[in-house]
């Protein structure tokens, strides 16, 4: 097995390197595309100039590489890159969150929204929109995040219910609590939509998810959460393997299941919450990516975590690029992922290879 394990981890390193390259290429390619077409080389020059601070790179080099217009630099640096990077980071965060939830809930069908985090975020955002707080630009994401966090803690509180036959924080309790809370919140959202009057369109559009007009602040916030979340998840990766076999087994094999479950639950939910708050509700990434990746890496979370994170970011960025610059009209990314992800999931399900 020593050898077998080694080759698996070598293979995964290779896949990870390949996916990183693919992601980097996709980021540049995606920055080329849009209303103004900018060449691949020019994008590389603009990015290199910004990173190194050497603005000669964007100046006239020779006839083959003429000077790059100021507006192009502005488009790439202020409009496209923040959006592209936010999208890639959110994709990674959703996939990572999916891996965590599938492990904790012992259920390959769980996703970041199983515990009602998305409903909580949507409720928070709807309140912010209804109260017309959107004038100050942070308030909607902030309210969404607060809504998600409150939901999470309420779900955890519920799943500690005293007389339930299954122990606190068991997957059954969590899933049930999540469904109950999400049902209440969706009713709440419907009510808010009903009273929202003219604002109803804003709420509906927000719920569909979009990466339009993201800023460097969004990039910074999401990447901070992703790095912290990724580190915590990786630390507990082996414990998560055991937890995915069931609480009692994990506990007898020396995992402090309550503590680890709680830590991972909060980590996964925070990743989902921050994703929802910057970009609205984007389904299927967190459900589908870990599934597809498990075909390649197997169920071992030490391999599944890094590869899923990369794959999630690539897939969501591809979807966003399609909706932003290939389709004649931009459609909300949440709709696109559901329209593509749904049928793919049906196909996997029918093949009987749900893992």
């Amino acid at each position, binding site marked *: 097995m*020593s050898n077998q394990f080694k080759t698996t981890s070598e293979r995964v390193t290779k896949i990870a390197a390949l996916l990183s390259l693919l992601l980097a290429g996709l980021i540049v390619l995606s920055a080329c595309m849009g209303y103004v077409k900018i060449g691949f080389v020019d994008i590389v020059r603009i990015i290199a100039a910004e990173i190194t601070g050497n603005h000669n790179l964007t100046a006239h080099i020779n006839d083959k590489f003429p000077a790059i217009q100021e507006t192009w630099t502005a488009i790439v640096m202020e409009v496209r890159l923040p959006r592209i990077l936010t999208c890639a980071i959110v994709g990674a965060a959703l996939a990572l969150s999916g891996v965590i939830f599938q492990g904790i809930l012992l259920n390959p069908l769980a996703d970041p929204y199983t515990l009602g985090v998305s409903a909580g975020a949507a409720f928070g955002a709807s309140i912010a929109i209804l109260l017309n707080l959107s004038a100050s630009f942070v308030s909607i994401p902030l309210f969404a995040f607060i809504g998600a966090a409150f939901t999470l803690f309420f779900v955890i509180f519920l799943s500690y219910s005293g007389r339930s036959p299954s122990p606190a924080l068991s997957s059954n309790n969590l899933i049930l609590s999540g469904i109950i809370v999400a049902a209440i919140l969706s009713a709440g959202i419907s009510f808010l939509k009903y009273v929202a009057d003219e604002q109803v369109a804003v709420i509906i559009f927000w719920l569909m998810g979009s990466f339009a007009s993201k800023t460097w602040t969004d990039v910074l916030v999401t990447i901070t959460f992703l790095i912290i979340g990724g580190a915590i998840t990786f630390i507990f990766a082996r414990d998560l393997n055991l937890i995915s*076999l069931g609480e009692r087994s994990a506990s007898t094999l020396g995992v402090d299941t309550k503590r680890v479950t709680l830590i991972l639950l909060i980590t996964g939910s925070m990743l989902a919450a921050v994703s929802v708050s910057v970009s609205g509700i984007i389904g299927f990434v967190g459900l589908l990516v870990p599934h597809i990746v498990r075909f390649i890496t197997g169920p071992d979370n030490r391999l599944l975590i890094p590869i899923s994170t990369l794959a999630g970011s690539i897939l969501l960025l591809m979807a966003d690029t399609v909706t932003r610059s290939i389709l004649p009209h931009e459609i909300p990314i949440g709709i696109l992922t559901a329209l593509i992800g749904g049928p793919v999931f049906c196909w996997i399900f029918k093949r009987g290879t749900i893992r």
Partner: protein
Amino acid sequence: MIETKKISFGYAEKPVIKDISLTFEAGKFYSILGPNGCGKTTLLDLMIGHLKPISGKVVLKIAGSHFITNSNRQSIFIKNINKKDKSVKDTNKNQIKCSDVSREKDILSMSKREVAKHIALVAQNYNINFPFTVKEIVMMGRHPYISRFANPSKEDFDIVSSVMERTGTDTFAHRKITDLSGGERQRCVFARALSQDTPLLFLDEAFSNMDISHTITLLNLVKKEVKSQNRTVVSVFHDINLAAIWSDELIFMKDGQVAACGKTDDVISEEIIKEVFHVKSKVEHNRYSGVKQAYFQGYK
């Protein structure tokens, strides 16, 4: 050695375990028998620290350096594998010398990892949703010994392959656990518990889905370790006759209490089976098994 001191569990109106005090000594195979819902599994859960008793406590007696220095244990273990029975006497001597120094510990005061180095459990529920390979599953038994960022050592691999060979799980080592039959899965989970290499082994209906040949193989395997390495096995059984053949002592449970316990041949009787299970039987010494067996009457 593990001891329950007047433990109770459940709610006031519905007690599950009532005031049970039992001592499980090293070098003995115990079986717990009783009807469905009499609290057998709960008792095991309390003893492993998975549930917290509402009164009383569970005490683990850690016998000297034998159990503390794990590398020492492993080397004894591996020596036994290599030399088979030759080193058994040495090991026993070693244990007697060490057992003078013993410490008592409340199971709830120990970390999960520490408990996992002392008690392994083969649980009733062995449903696994994720397609780990059999070898990966068995390697998980080494979890308490591997530090967070380390990879399994050569010793871990040696123990795993030796356990897999002895449990016959090596024949499907690279298959996915989700593709196996119930009995095969149960053998994997059994192998995982053995690879934990603990002085105490709890079996919760561990043979319920296994064919008779594997049941006998595994029972002989653990019985041998009980005798040669002074381990303790506590097994929940439904089959009274299998329990009688392999157990040194039997514990009959009824309604969360101990109905009878003691040496197998002393305890097993027509009266106790009638009292606990409400069935008529005939208990006789069987020359082939070498122990008393219970016989039942069918429909006529």
